[in-house]
């Protein structure tokens, strides 16, 4: 896999699978990477160097920035940790009863939100790190996305819940995924109109939050991340979705190793990048949308590969041509 001029591979990669990549707020320089090797690393992607690294006692499944100097992370050890890059110190903020699958920060309500396999979502005040609430979900939380002051939670058994972060007393909307297979990832449109949901069966749904029937009828789903070879169609999980903040277009990454960029409103694919060495585990656009971080990391979808491709993060400078709606 040769690097194209607009793309390079970060050095100093984790020793095991990459679970999540996240860009810092207002920065295309700093990238947070959590890994199955128990570590969370902060990279300077401009200098291609690793700046910080801290560890959990077990694999880390997700991480996020709170502000430029603080990160939160959680994983199999069930602990939510906050790390201060200034003082290079970490502290355990709290715990779940089961591994933490998702960690998100909501700038609108200034809360860090964790979703866990213990079927709860917990809210944390990042200023004096402490728990401020717990929302029970119908099943294990698999994915979560903050959408303004709404929170969209995707759980096992294809359930989708929309919570209002300002009023957590009840679930705003209870939905069932429109896709027939396990929900893999949910990310909301930066314009807050809706969200995109992907499943393990090479399919992506574009959904709208407004319950108005006129709006609802705009929703649709499409197939992707499928490869036909030798008279057989291989259908891959769509593991990652990342939105371009400016254009409301989004990238999807599948276990087929491909990254596609879509214009969800016009139902068009804008581009497809080359095939990456192995499954795309996570994707992140920089806040300005000029850089896409692509984590290519085997995810045990199949029996262990003979020689699994190395876990790697590609930093790709994307152009308007690749990310801007054509019309």
């Amino acid at each position, binding site marked *: 896999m040769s690097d194209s001029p607009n793309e390079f591979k970060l050095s100093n990669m984790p020793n095991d699978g990459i679970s999540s990549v996240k860009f810092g707020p207002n920065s295309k320089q700093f990238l947070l990477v959590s890994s199955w090797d128990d570590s969370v690393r902060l990279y300077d992607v401009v200098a291609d160097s690793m700046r910080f690294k801290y560890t959990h006692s077990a694999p880390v499944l997700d991480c996020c920035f709170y502000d430029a100097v603080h990160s939160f992370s959680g994983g199999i050890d069930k602990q939510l940790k906050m790390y201060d890059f200034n003082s290079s110190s970490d502290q355990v903020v709290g715990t779940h009863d089961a591994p933490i699958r998702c960690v998100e920060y909501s700038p609108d309500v200034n809360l860090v939100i964790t979703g866990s*396999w213990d079927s709860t979502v917990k809210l944390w005040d990042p200023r004096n790190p402490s728990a401020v609430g717990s929302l029970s979900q119908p099943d294990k939380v698999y994915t979560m996305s903050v959408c303004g002051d709404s929170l969209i939670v995707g759980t096992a058994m294809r359930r989708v819940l929309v919570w209002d972060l300002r009023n957590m007393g009840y679930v705003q909307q209870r939905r069932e995924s429109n896709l027939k297979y396990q929900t893999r990832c949910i990310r909301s449109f930066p314009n807050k109109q809706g969200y995109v949901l992907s499943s393990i069966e090479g399919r992506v749904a574009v959904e709208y939050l407004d319950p108005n029937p006129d709006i609802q009828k705009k929703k649709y789903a499409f197939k992707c991340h499928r490869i036909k070879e030798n008279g057989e169609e291989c259908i891959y999980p769509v593991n990652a979705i990342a939105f371009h903040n400016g254009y409301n277009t989004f990238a999807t990454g599948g276990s087929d190793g491909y990254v596609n960029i879509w214009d969800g409103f016009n139902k068009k694919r804008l581009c497809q990048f080359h095939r990456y060495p192995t499954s795309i585990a996570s994707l992140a656009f920089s806040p300005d949308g000029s850089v896409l971080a692509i984590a290519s990391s085997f995810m045990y979808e199949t029996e262990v590969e003979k020689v699994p491709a190395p876990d790697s993060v590609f930093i790709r400078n994307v152009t308007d041509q690749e990310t801007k709606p054509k019309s």
Partner: protein
Amino acid sequence: MGRKKKKQMKPWCWYCNREFDDEKILIQHQKAKHFKCHICYKKLYTGPGLAIHCMQVHKEKIDKVPNSLPGRCNTEIEIYGMEGIPEEDVKAHEKNKSKKAADIANEGDSDDNSNPPPSAAAPMMNGMPGATAQPGMPFAPPGMRPMVPGGPMMGPMGAGVPNPMMPQGGMGTVPGPMMGGMGPMGPMGMAGNMGPVNQQMRPGMGNMGPMNPMNMSRPQGPGASRPLFPAAAQSSTATSTAAGGGRPTFPAAASVVSSNSGAGGGGSATITGAPTIKKPESTSGLTSKLVHPDEDISLEELRANLPKYQRNLMESMIASSGMVNTSMAQGPPMQAGGPPMQAGGPHMQSGGPPMQTGGPMNMGGMGMNMNMGMGMGGPGPNMMPGGMMGGPPRPGMMPGGPMMGNNMMRGPPGNMGGMGMPGHGPRGPPMGGGMGMGMGMRPMNGMPFQGNMNMRGPGPGPRPFN
């Protein structure tokens, strides 16, 4: 006779009354003129097909067939070439033609009216490919016609109900989505109404199990909606029959019900506590393969249960949490052995030894014990690490483990297997292993065994039916 032959009707288009020399040209005309989607210009095969296409693909409802004469714009009547035209209209058209002919020929009305129409109509229907093979076609039993095109059948399809449930990328093959769309409707009260109609019209379908809601909704697709076009009539019936068994039509049940009809029968090969993912259906005609483990739990959960991460967790648990004392660890499991003994029956025998070894071991040993359990699984022909792992994160179990979510999760699969699939002889040993394992760990969690078993009770129940 020769006179009648001369009067044999030319194919004509019901929608615009235009006559054609050849039915092929007529069909081309209909596709281009009446069945073309105004949004994407896709040419569909029938009016209802077009309506469904617009609804499913563009979320738009069309209430009349484009370029049709007033009164001939019904999108619910399924017409393909000369096929499907309501009998009255056939007769009326016939009459018009014959009247003209009669005028020209100066012949008596009575003669023309009584004889030619039926004789002309009959060959027309029989002459069409597949017409006889489609008792479902509305005009076949003339008496039936008035009730057939009525709302109840086509209505729901146009109502958009199927859409939210069956998001289809596009109308790959026309009959597919249509049947799919009808599917979910079946059980919802339609089944009852449709049943009789269906059976009357297509007696062959009777055996498609009116008992089974899943099967039921399928055959009704073709039966109720009528084949979209003659050529597809037989094949669509065939596919629906074949597919009916394995593809759950209810979205809600989809992820719970495992498929056993798929080519590979992948679900049956692994022992698992988690629901199995059903096989994807292929629209392309190629066999499709879902690149995902069979268990319907997330890749992360499966991965977290790999031995290598379990070991990590063990170490961290030892380091971070208070140790459970050994004697406690020993006591409960033996007693707890009671309930599973009944449930698991003979497997307990093989489960015994590991339980004993497992029992005395302390926290540190637990990791080992678990690995042993897996090792023991080995000999069982069907035991795969994947299967073991699959079990853990059953939704019901998660809440149980206050301190060791994962390890705790690991126990259940064994138990599950033992309970859920008592019938499978060869799997006995691995399950026993799993059980032993489960018990070895149990005390660590300090959780009531019994409760856990109960929780699991309902889980494995449905399995054997899959």
